[in-house]
């Protein structure tokens, strides 16, 4: 019984998301993109990086990348802690 309520609400949520996503902007036409046009125009000029995505990942939004490296490091620490070879203390 409870399970069906959950499934129905998941379907409702999915349908609402489906319907709402039509309103972002028409697919393939993001309109004026101030921030991205800045990257497209300036990244090669001021940084000489051909690949604009790389220049965003490592320069404009470099702080996200360190957060992301920290996420990987966290995952390694957590998985390593879960499978650590503990000395038993029976």
């Amino acid at each position, binding site marked *: 019984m409870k399970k069906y309520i959950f499934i129905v609400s998941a379907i409702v949520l999915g349908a609402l998301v489906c319907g709402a996503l039509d309103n972002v902007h028409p697919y393939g036409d993001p309109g004026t993109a101030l921030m991205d046009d800045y990257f497209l125009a300036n990244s090669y000029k001021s940084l000489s990086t051909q690949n604009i995505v790389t220049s965003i990942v490592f320069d404009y939004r470099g702080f996200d990348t360190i957060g992301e490296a920290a996420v*990987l490091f966290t995952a390694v620490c957590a998985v390593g802690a879960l499978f650590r070879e503990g000395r038993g203390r029976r």
Partner: protein
Amino acid sequence: MIGNAPFFVVGVLFMMALVGIFMSRNLIKIAIAVTILGSSVNLFLVSLGYRAGGSVPIHFLAGEGEVMVLPTPQAMTLTAIVIALAVTALLLSLIMHVWRHYGTIDVDEVRRLRG
């Protein structure tokens, strides 16, 4: 030609993943559903940045004066993919430990903490 089809597919994937979490009783199936949920969000981000007729955001390949697709969602998606991988690895490790302790990976039987 294809209208808003990618956004629609994102919505359907989102719904399928959420329903899949509740339909399945196996913990690994639940982890698979969570991975699909993450992929649908990644697809949403990248399709947000698509410009009709745009080219790859690399000067070297695109040539002069071409319209390019938006690069920021791609950078965001790169981060999101790696984060999803990290969470998947951790979820699966936890499931392995649940198997070790409980001898089952049925979601209805993993319930020592209740009340």
